[in-house]
C-alpha cells in the first residue's frame, strides 16, 4: 500500500470523486421523479432553457433536466451492473485459465479471443438484437463483450502470480487450490481489477447510450441518454439544440470523471504514462 495516501490526495482524484457524487445525487433525484419525467405536455413543447425549465423542454413537452437526471440513474445503474457481471465472469475465467490445467486454459481462452475479435459495440448490438431490443438485452450484450476483456488482462496477472513467493509458499504448505485462488491470488489482482472496472465502466456508459441510440437498447419513452440524443437529432437542425446536447453533456461529464479516476489509479501503478 506504499504511495497510496499521496496519490489519493491528488486533486484530480478528488475532483472526479466530487463529480461522481454530483451524478449520484442527480440520479437519486431522478429516481424520485420516476415516471413523472415521461409525462408529455403539448402546451409547452420545445421551450428553450429558462428559469422554469433549466434545460428546456423536448418535442413532447417533457422537462429535459428531469429526463437527464432519470437517465443518470439508468446509465449509472446499468453500467455498474454490466461491469460487475462482466468483472465477475472475467475473474472466474481468468482464475480457471491462470491457475488451472493447461487444456482448460486453451479451451476457455479460444472463445474469449473469438469475442475479442469483434468491435465491441457491434457484437453487443448483434446480441441485443438477437435477444430482442430492450435494456436487459443491451446489458447482456455489454456483459458478453466485457467478460473477455477482464479474462485476458486478469489471466496474465494470475499466471504471473504463480511464480510469486506467497503463492508458492501457500502451495507448499498444501492449501487447496480454490483457497489459494480466493485468498491469495484474488487480492493480488486487486489493482488491475480496479483499473479495468473503472475503464470499462466509462466505456459501458458510452456503449449503452450507443445501443439505445441505434434503437436496440432503451425503448422510446424511457429517459435514457442515448435515446434522448437520438430524439434530439431531429431538433438540432431546426435550432432546438438543448434537447440533444444536454443528455450528451451529462454523459460526457460522467465518462470524463470516470476516465480521470482511471488514469490516476493507473498512473499510481505506472508513473510514466498518463
Amino acid at each position, binding site marked *: 500500500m506504499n504511495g497510496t495516501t499521496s496519490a489519493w490526495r491528488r486533486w484530480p482524484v478528488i475532483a472526479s470523486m466530487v463529480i461522481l457524487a454530483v451524478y449520484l445525487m442527480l440520479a437519486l433525484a431522478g429516481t424520485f421523479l420516476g415516471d413523472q419525467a415521461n409525462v408529455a405536455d403539448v402546451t409547452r413543447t420545445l421551450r428553450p432553457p429558462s428559469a422554469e425549465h433549466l434545460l428546456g423542454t423536448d418535442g413532447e413537452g417533457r422537462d429535459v433536466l428531469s429526463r437527464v437526471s432519470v437517465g443518470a440513474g439508468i446509465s449509472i445503474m446499468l453500467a455498474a451492473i454490466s461491469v460487475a457481471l462482466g468483472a465477475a465472469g472475467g475473474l472466474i475465467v481468468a482464475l480457471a485459465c491462470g491457475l488451472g490445467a493447461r487444456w482448460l486454459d486453451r479451451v476457455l481462452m479460444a472463445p474469449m479471443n473469438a469475442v475479442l475479435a469483434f468491435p465491441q459495440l457491434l457484437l453487443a448490438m448483434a446480441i441485443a438484437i438477437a435477444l430482442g431490443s430492450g435494456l436487459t438485452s443491451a446489458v447482456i450484450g455489454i456483459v458478453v463483450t466485457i467478460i473477455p476483456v477482464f479474462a485476458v488482462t486478469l489471466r496474465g496477472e494470475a499466471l504471473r502470480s504463480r511464480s510469486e513467493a506467497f503463492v508458492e509458499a501457500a502451495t507448499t504448505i498444501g492449501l487447496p487450490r480454490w483457497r489459494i485462488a480466493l485468498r491469495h491470488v484474488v487480492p493480488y489482482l486487486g489493482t488491475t481489477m480496479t483499473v479495468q472496472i473503472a475503464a470499462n465502466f466509462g466505456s459501458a456508459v458510452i456503449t449503452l447510450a450507443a445501443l439505445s441510440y441505434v434503437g436496440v437498447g432503451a425503448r422510446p419513452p424511457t429517459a435514457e441518454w442515448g435515446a434522448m440524443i437520438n430524439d434530439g437529432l431531429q431538433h438540432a437542425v431546426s435550432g432546438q439544440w438543448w434537447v440533444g446536447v444536454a443528455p*450528451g453533456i451529462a454523459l460526457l461529464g460522467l465518462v470524463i470523471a470516470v476516465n480521470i479516476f482511471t488514469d490516476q489509479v493507473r498512473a499510481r501503478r505506472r508513473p510514466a504514462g498518463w
Partner: protein
Amino acid sequence: MFRDIRQRLLASAVTIVLASFVSFVVLRALPGDPARLIAGPLAGPETLAATRSSLGLDRPFFAQYGQFLWNFVRGDWGYSFSVGDEVREALTSRLTATLELALYAFVLAVVGALVCASVASFRPGFRRGLVRLFALVGLGSPPFWVGLVLIVVFSSYLGWWPGPSGRLSPQLYPPEPVTGFYTVDFALHGDLIGVSDSAAHLVLPVVSLALLPWAFLTRLLTANMADTAGQPYILVVRSKGVPAWRTHVRHVLANSLLPTVSSCGLILATLITGSVLVETVFNWPGVGAMLTEGISAQDFALVQSFILLSAILYVVGNLVGDAVNRMIDARLRTPGAAR
C-alpha cells in the same frame, strides 16, 4: 521470422473461424426466431414452417453452421429484406461512401495525433494541458453526439458547413463514378463547384468520426513519447548538439511509433463502429447507415454479415499492424523475442 508470421497467420485464421461461429450462434441459436421475423408477426404456422425450411432452420445445428460458413466463403451472404437486395450487393453498392468518409477521418486522426502528441510531449505547460484536455473529452464523447453538436454549432448557428444532407447539395448531380469518391471524381472531371460542395459536406462527418481515434492515438503516442524522451540515448543525441525540436521529431517520435502502428486494428474498429454511429446523424448514404436501418428492421442476414466482416477486418488489421512493426523494428524479428 517467417515461422513466426506463419504462426500468427494460423492463430488469426483460427480466431476468424471462431468469430464466425460466435456470430452464427448469436444470431441463429439465441432465443428469437428468424423465421418469425422474416415471415412477420401475422404469419400462420404453415408459412412459418415453410420459411423455416427455406432458411434451413430445420436442419441440425452444425449442418446449419457449415452451410452458413460455406455460403459466406462463396460470397453468398444471404438476402437482406430491409434493403430488398442480396447482402453483398447492398454492402458493396454503399461501400465507397463509407470508405471516402473513413479514409479522410483516418488521415485526419493520424496526422492530428502525430502533431498533437509531438507538441504535447515536447515540454510540460499550457499546450500539453490543452491536448490532454481535448483527448480526455474526445475519449468520452460518443461519436453520434459529437456529430449533433457540430451540426448545432457549425451548421445551424454559424452556417459554415452544410448539415445532415448527405454527400452533396440537392441541386448537384453525383459525378460520373471513377473511384466512387465524390471529391476525387469531381476533381477528375474538373468540376470545382462539385469538389468544394462535396468537400464541405465531408467536413463535419469526418471530424465527428476522427475525434475518437484521434484522442486514442494522441494519448497512446504522448505516453510513449514521454517514456522515450527519458531514455539515455535521447540524452546522448541532445548532448551531441542536435537541436531540441529536431531530436524530438527525429528520435523521440520515431522511436515511439511502434505501439501506434500495432494499434492499427483498433483504429479500424473505431472507424467501423464510428461510421455506424455517425452516418445516420449526417444522412450519409454508407454501409453504417444501412446497418442502422437493418438493425431497426431486425435484418439478421445484414447484421450478421456486417459484424463478421468487421471482425475479419479487425483481425487482419491487427495482423498488418504487427507485420509492419516487424518490418520497422529489428528487435521483434528474433524468434521467441516477440509475443
